[in-house]
């Protein structure tokens, strides 16, 4: 018991140190890195939030949902509508006048992101009530359908969303502090959630829904809760992405976006928060790094023309390789813990000691 308490204290200290180090790194990056690198660092955070939001729905509760892009679209549009000034909106809506409540709203950035998340969660609740009666791949197709419907509605609801023209000139509020702040909050929330009884119920539903039902769990209720929490963070991620890229239009939120996030979650490991974070770092950086193949290169005086689009081909092959040869992804269902890190780091030092006490530990 004493040992456990001590460990917890140690873990908290280590976690705080890591967060402080992350803060120092971000501070350093902000002052010394160029805009492109900063953009990538920001994208890592936003992708991580989105991956976590998908992981809670799919990796932890076992609902194959492909509606992520639709939720992001709602979050991004709500946030953009909140954060723009009335004058800007009046200038931008050319095709149709912007209608009343939306034309006068003007909130701070934080409020706009929260509003984006909450409204997304509310709409996801409306979607969940009918759709979550389905299971398996039917659910995937139905949620995909909803994402498409959301996109079509946004394209056509010109008085609210400015239609296919999209919204431009969103002020770049989403700096690194906001993005990583939201990421930390998301991560903390998920850890607490998954350690609580909710987490156990989610995993029970994922592993065997019938058994969970037999145990007296109202599985439908918990599935809806998980779906809405995931949607909330997808909305937040979408809002941050909109504020980061500063331009949104309906075409942006197509199936490819969902696919990217799915790729991160699968590569990192379904049902592992650590995996989602690692996956988003690796995939985001890899996707940017792969731009090399699209640009002309010179190797030993040979000019190799860049192949536009090759990036996504490699990306798709990578997904296939992962799913065919390492289905559980990077982390499987394992999670990061300080115990394992310390155990791993101290292994070379006390190998001899372990040989003696090995039996006891086992």
């Amino acid at each position, binding site marked *: 018991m004493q040992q456990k308490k001590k460990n917890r204290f140690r873990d908290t200290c280590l976690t705080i140190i890591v967060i402080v180090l992350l803060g120092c790194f971000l501070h350093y990056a902000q002052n010394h890195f160029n805009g492109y690198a900063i953009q990538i660092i920001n994208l890592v955070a936003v992708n991580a939030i989105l991956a976590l939001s998908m992981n809670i729905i799919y990796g932890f509760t076992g609902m194959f949902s492909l509606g992520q892009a639709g939720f992001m679209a709602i979050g991004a549009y709500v946030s953009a509508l909140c954060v723009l000034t009335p004058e800007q909106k009046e200038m931008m809506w050319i095709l149709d006048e912007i209608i009343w409540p939306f034309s006068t709203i003007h909130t701070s950035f934080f409020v706009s992101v929260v509003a984006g998340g909450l409204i997304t969660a509310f709409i996801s609740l409306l979607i969940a009530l009918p*759709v979550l009666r389905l299971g398996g791949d039917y659910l995937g197709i139905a949620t995909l359908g909803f994402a498409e419907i959301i996109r079509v509605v946004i394209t056509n609801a010109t008085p609210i969303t400015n239609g296919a023209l999209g919204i431009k000139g969103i002020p770049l509020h989403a700096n690194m502090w906001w993005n990583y702040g939201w990421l930390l909050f998301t991560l903390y929330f998920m850890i607490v959630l998954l350690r609580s009884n909710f987490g156990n119920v989610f995993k029970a539903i994922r592993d065997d829904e019938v058994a969970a039902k037999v145990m007296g769990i109202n599985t439908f209720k918990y599935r809806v809760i998980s779906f809405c929490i995931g949607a909330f963070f997808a909305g937040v991620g979408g809002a941050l992405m909109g504020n980061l890229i500063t331009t949104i239009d309906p075409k942006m939120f197509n199936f490819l976006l969902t696919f990217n996030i799915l790729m991160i979650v699968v590569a990192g490991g379904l049902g592992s928060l650590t995996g989602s974070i690692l996956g988003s770092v690796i995939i985001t950086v890899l996707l940017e790094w792969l731009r090399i193949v699209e640009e002309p290169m010179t190797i030993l005086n040979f000019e190799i023309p860049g192949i536009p689009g090759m990036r996504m081909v490699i990306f*798709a092959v990578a997904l296939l390789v992962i*799913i065919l040869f390492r289905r559980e992804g990077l982390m499987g269902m394992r999670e990061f813990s300080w115990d394992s890190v310390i155990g791993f780091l101290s292994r070379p030092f006390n190998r001899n000691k372990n040989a003696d006490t090995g039996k006891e530990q086992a």
Partner: protein
Amino acid sequence: MTSAMFIQHFFNALTLGSLYGLIAIGYTMVYGILRLINFAHGDIFMMGAYFIFFGTVSFFLPWGVAAVLAIAAASLCGVIIDRIAYQPLRNAPRISALISAIGVSFLIENLALVIFTGLPRPVVQPEWLVKPLAFGNVRILPLGLVVPAISFILVAALLWVVYRTKPGLAMRAISKDIETTRLLGVKVNKIIAFTFALGSALAAASGIMWALRYPQIHPFMGVLPGFKAFIAAVFGGIGSIQGAMVGGLILGFIEIMLVAFFPEFSGYRDAYAFILLIAILLVKPTGLLGEKLEEKI
């Protein structure tokens, strides 16, 4: 709306619907056997269109020969996809195969984008297919008659294969119980490959006729028709070939007629199919003609 216009819309809808139906059959056959949504099916459809384009424009083949070659090539692609991306995952969780299918679909689309470039290509239409026929004041493209006719012949041929031949019998047996069928000595993987070949051939045929009807082809042309055809398959009852055709026709009629009667909502055209999907899933998840699928525990 005059009756002449209605008749023209009717033939447009019949054409579109039978094209959806042909694609939907491939989805329904694969789903019936493997319980897998073959996301790459819409891309086979796209490749059929590209093969016919290159056959006629680059190699100057006559239309008939090019069409047969394109269909054969597309079937081969279907079999290769099954061998590489789906067969290793037969015993994996179904979701893994589904993700693999999404990966293959993206691979084909982006590969097509690299190889064929994103530029839309114009397909050469044979003269006699696009010269409108006049019946009184009704003007109909010969395509509007030829496409449904060919489609129905193909479906009839497929039904004959499935219900009157040995491989068809094996296919139906696999869809009931794959393990027992294997124990009875049927080469299951061969039959599944045969299923993919048949489905892909129909998708390619549909792609060729689509390219004739809407003569602009591009690497992403298969995405939306693919989704809609899947919806048609679900609507008609997944696993049922007749159901897929009926679902495709209904979807074609809904799309064309809603746009014809309510032009102000034409921006929502691509959403109709998805609304239809969600409605049918909620009211009758097994579709119009589908058998009840019991989830095994």
